[in-house]
């Protein structure tokens, strides 16, 4: 009897120890996140007012001003990036999962994996050589292309994985109704997987919104209001980069606020996606 209790006791303590370890690990993961948010909020909140969203930056040396151009610029850049990265990513992912059990599919999958490991600055340099140099000037288009390329691996892989989760029986149901394979893929398979795909799209967009390095060679930055895609364009990340290493106290402050706005922007985007993809039906 005593024997048995001993083992029970051992089992219990092991349980408690393992449990505590997982809790500590979870905290270790959450604490940096919390700190980032805390610092950005506490440092950035001072300048966070309506003005920051609607005013233009003041000339060098003058305090105050806002980042209206950079906020719009970032939206335009991820818009262009999305216009390229979302369709290419979704179509590639769909191809890989539905038709990609061959050498070509294997190669595409491999290259997508490689692309996801390529540092974003390299993608920036490529966009610089392929777009900026031939056009002879920096542009929102070049920045958007760089961001679009960066989105492709995330969206492709998520799409492929999500589509693979769609039960085979649904494809058969579609085909057995006399629906052609391509229509079955779009109207049934993609439609069933689309919530998961949307998560991948969101991830891709958020990552792109936070990129700085590839924009330095492409969209460059712009202290003035511009929404022209053939002209250099401002972005929050490039402002954060410039302002945080500036000697002006005021600019350092604004860099924090820009960072906070970027976080808010991504959160809003995230909520928007949640809303759009919310279930129409009560229980699922």
């Amino acid at each position, binding site marked *: 009897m005593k024997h048995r209790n001993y083992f029970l006791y051992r089992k219990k303590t092991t349980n408690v120890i393992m449990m505590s370890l997982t809790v500590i690990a979870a905290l270790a993961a959450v604490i940096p996140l919390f700190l980032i948010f805390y610092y950005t909020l506490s440092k950035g909140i001072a300048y966070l007012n309506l003005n920051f969203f609607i005013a233009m930056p003041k000339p060098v040396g003058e305090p105050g001003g806002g980042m209206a151009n950079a906020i719009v610029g970032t939206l335009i850049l991820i818009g262009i990036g999305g216009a390229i990265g979302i369709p290419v990513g979704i179509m590639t992912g769909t191809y890989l999962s539905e038709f990609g059990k061959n050498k070509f599919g294997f190669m595409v999958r491999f290259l997508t994996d490689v692309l996801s490991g390529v540092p974003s600055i390299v993608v920036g340099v490529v966009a610089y050589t392929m777009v900026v140099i031939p056009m002879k000037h920096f542009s929102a288009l070049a920045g958007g292309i760089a961001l679009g390329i960066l989105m492709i691996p995330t969206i492709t892989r998520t799409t492929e994985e999500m589509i693979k989760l769609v*039960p085979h*029986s*649904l494809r*058969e*149901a*579609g*085909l*057995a*109704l*006399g*629906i*052609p394979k391509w*229509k*079955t893929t779009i*109207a*049934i398979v993609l*439609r*069933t997987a*689309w919530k998961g795909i949307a998560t991948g799209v969101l991830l891709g967009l958020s990552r792109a919104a936070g990129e700085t390095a590839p924009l330095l060679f492409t969209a460059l930055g712009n202290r003035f209001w511009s929404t022209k895609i053939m002209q250099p364009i401002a972005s929050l990340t490039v402002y954060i980069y410039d302002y945080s290493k500036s000697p002006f106290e005021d600019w350092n402050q604004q860099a924090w606020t820009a960072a906070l706005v970027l976080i808010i922007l991504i959160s809003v985007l995230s909520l928007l996606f949640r809303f759009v993809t919310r279930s*129409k*039906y*009560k*229980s*699922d």
Partner: protein
Amino acid sequence: MPQNDIKISVKNLDAFYGKNKVLHNITMDIPSNQVVAIIGPSGCGKSTFIRCLNRMHEVVGGTITGSIMLDGEDLSKNDPVLLRRRVGMVFQKPNPFPSMSIFNNVAAGLRLNGVHNKKEISLIVEKCLKQAALWDEVKDNLDDSGANISGGQQQRLCIARTLAVEPEVILMDEPASALDPVSTSKIESLIFELKKDYTIVIVTHNMQQAARVSDRTAFFYLGELIEYDITKQIFLNPAKKQTEDYITGRFG
């Protein structure tokens, strides 16, 4: 059987998965507006056989030799997509489209086949749900998800979905094997109703079910058609020893 009463005529059918031959020289005629039951132990090729009839066999990479005629036309000569609108299929596990409402599940085949007239679609949906004996249970919740109803209801929804594209033949692969007895008997009476308008081939491992719903029964064993006759004959007076052993439960 008079020639013009034959809906599907199968001659010397062999079916393969890669090099593996799983159906051996099947020859049988399926008459119009009758229910033909396919019985036999698990793995004997029942599913493979009916999947040859709407060319779903080739979807998983299978191949065949021999011929299958639908109304005297060779299946292999026509487009499989068009064929599947004439020969519908209900699967073993109910597989409604989870991202679609009940209404849209039934409408899916129509819309994706190019019918877009709203009024026409909703008339057909109602008609098919009634034919599938589901209308009264779902008519107030047509916008609910097709995946949130009971298994038995889901299977009837799948039947309604199949009916909507107006097939001539309906293939059913153990349609009630995943269902409770009440749902099973609903499906069985449904089959009885449907045979007025459709030719039905149903796979079942439930002998009582075969006896209750079918006009003719085919007994498959190890990929061969052992015996095919009027259902009564098969159950009361089988010609082959293997058939008798199977229906009396001595193996299988």
